[in-house]
């Protein structure tokens, strides 16, 4: 039983990472109706940029290597890069494709994926890099002693970051002027335009916020598994998360991420040995597929009446 809990908690925590990527998808889908396949590439780009700046900044500025100043400067610069990416995407991809069918935009974001991956590796190189955020990856002693369950403090930190991020986004959406405009656009493009909300600015903002989420997700993932190209494949797991949680729901992304994370780990441990292992690679997709047949709008998604 104790082993079961360890697997479950490990799965839930890796689910947090999926949820963070899925969150970026949801933000963009809500505000612009674009299914942004490039979110995984954005995570990769953000993480690589952050690590890259960490490496080069001490040389450029003479700041202490690994110090707090370098960390925050790199963070700010990476965030700037994500904002620039958001502006460029809006200008060169979204704006010319306004009013195209959603599937065209989807294919455009697949192109964007390749573009972003190529640029990221072109600038920073393709080496696998480690990332140290200064948070120890050791089991928490309290849990170890009292319940005999192994939980890494880093995983708890990741979960806390995710929780803070979601809370901050919820507040941002609920209580700020921009947040209200974002919700208006998500609700009805035409109506939002007619009361004077500048759609283009909103798109830039929402892509930039998604870029910020990608940066946070990329930093946590990078610290866990190293910053490498494989990140983009793992980020694809966010797709079944979305199907499970619903494309338009922030809590759905979190719950979906947790379910996918936990179930894939449990399946790997308890079902995997009977079929040769490695089922983690496809289990989430099949789960999502099964789920689609029962509840196509996801757990928290808006029910849309749509004849197929």
């Amino acid at each position, binding site marked *: 039983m104790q082993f079961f809990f360890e697997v479950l908690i490990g799965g839930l925590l890796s689910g947090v990472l999926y949820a963070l990527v899925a969150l970026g998808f949801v933000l963009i889908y809500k505000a612009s109706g674009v*299914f942004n396949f490039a979110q995984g590439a954005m995570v990769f780009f953000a993480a690589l940029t952050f690590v890259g700046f960490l490496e080069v900044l001490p040389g450029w500025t003479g700041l202490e290597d690994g110090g707090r100043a370098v960390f925050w400067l790199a963070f700010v610069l990476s965030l700037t890069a994500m904002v620039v990416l958001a502006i460029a995407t809006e200008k*060169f*991809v979204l704006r*010319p*494709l306004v009013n*195209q069918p*959603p*599937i*065209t935009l*989807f*294919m*455009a974001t*697949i*192109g*964007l*994926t*390749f*573009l*972003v*991956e*190529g*640029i990221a*590796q*072109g600038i920073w*190189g*393709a080496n696998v890099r480690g990332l140290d955020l200064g948070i120890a990856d050791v089991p928490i002693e309290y849990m170890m002693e009292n319940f005999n369950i192994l939980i890494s403090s880093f995983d708890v930190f990741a979960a806390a970051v995710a929780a803070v991020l979601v809370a901050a986004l919820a507040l941002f959406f609920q209580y700020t002027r921009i947040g209200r405009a974002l919700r208006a656009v998500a609700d009805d493009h035409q109506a939002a335009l007619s009361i004077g909300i500048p759609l283009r600015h909103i798109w830039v903002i929402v892509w930039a916020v998604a870029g910020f989420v990608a940066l946070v997700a990329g930093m946590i993932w990078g610290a866990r598994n190293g910053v490498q190209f494989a990140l983009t*494949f793992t980020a*694809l797991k966010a*797709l*079944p998360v*979305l*199907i499970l949680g619903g*494309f338009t729901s922030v809590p759905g992304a979190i719950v979906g991420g947790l379910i996918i994370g936990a179930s894939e780990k449990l399946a790997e441990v308890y079902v995997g040995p009977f*079929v*040769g*292992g*490695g*089922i983690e*690679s*496809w289990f989430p*997709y*099949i789960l*999502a*597929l099964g789920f*689609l*047949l029962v509840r*196509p709008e996801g757990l928290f998604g808006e029910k849309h009446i749509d*004849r*197929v």
Partner: protein
Amino acid sequence: MLYREAGQFKASYEADQQIFPILQDRIGVLLLIGFFALAVPLFADQYWLKAILIPVLIFSLAAIGLNILTGYAGQLSLGSAAFMAVGAFGAYNFMLRIDGMPFLVAILLGGLCAALVGVMFGLPSLRIKGFYLAVATLAAQFFIVWALVKIEWFSNYSSSGVITAQQIEILGFAFEGPQSKYLLTLFVVVVMALAAKNMVRSTTGRSWMAVRDMDVAAEVIGIRLMRTKLTAFAVSSFYCGVAGALYAYTYIGTVEPEGFNLDLSFKILFMIIIGGVGSIMGSFLGAAFIVLLPIALDVFVPMLLGDLVSSSFVSNLQLIVFGGLIVFFLIVEPHGLARLWQIGKEKLRLWPFPH
């Protein structure tokens, strides 16, 4: 002047129902086939045949397959490489386990296996569409590759699922050199491409297009959605499967399931976007473009920039160029290279007296 259909009256039903109703098109296609079947094998060297012409033909076939599903029936799929894998492994097993299996029958049976699997993964399309379906086909992509690696029977218990294609022999003639393999590939591809061209203007093809354009309206005029979508999945997977079998037998020789990964699926998707969604001709143009582009970049970029660039830079440049081109084509010419060809034809109709 040269290309005009004025005066070509169709006096019989047969004449009206030809695949290429315009005389110039017929001549053009015959010339093209003649050129690639007779002139090319004589003059092209081994490298061109092996590394460029054969893969272009095979990918064209796969692109036709995806085009049938995505371009004609409007169902986006990200799993075409997996169906190619099913075709390749299917053909391999038929050749291996049935004594005296004719090669052509084996690849067709491989295609049929792919069609069956395609229908299975196409079933969700009855309830979902768009992005949801794309994710469902991703499930096919990952699951099939996993199954081919893990279930060792498929690869005859070789390590990590690698298979080596058997010798191709038809009626006692062994296909060994690139020349003969090229001709064999060309034959299969031409026959299947003509069949596809014919199919898309038949009842089947027209009902695919009706479903693509508006499924509710299609249902109202009496098209059965379930049957139409599933035939699209079956035919599309069949084409991909045959392409996969050819990929294993006439192109690579030794394949592993991991070779049919998501990247290959994306490549095939790019072929139809660049070549032209909903065009058989476009599948060929797109495949040629996507196969030739990396080779051209490999050759010309170092030539232009000299020693300034490393090979990793060139491979990143490839990603950037691919991505950029996709976005560019979607914005500037959503109907791809095939549309450019069509515009050319319109111009040719008036040339040389445009007024």
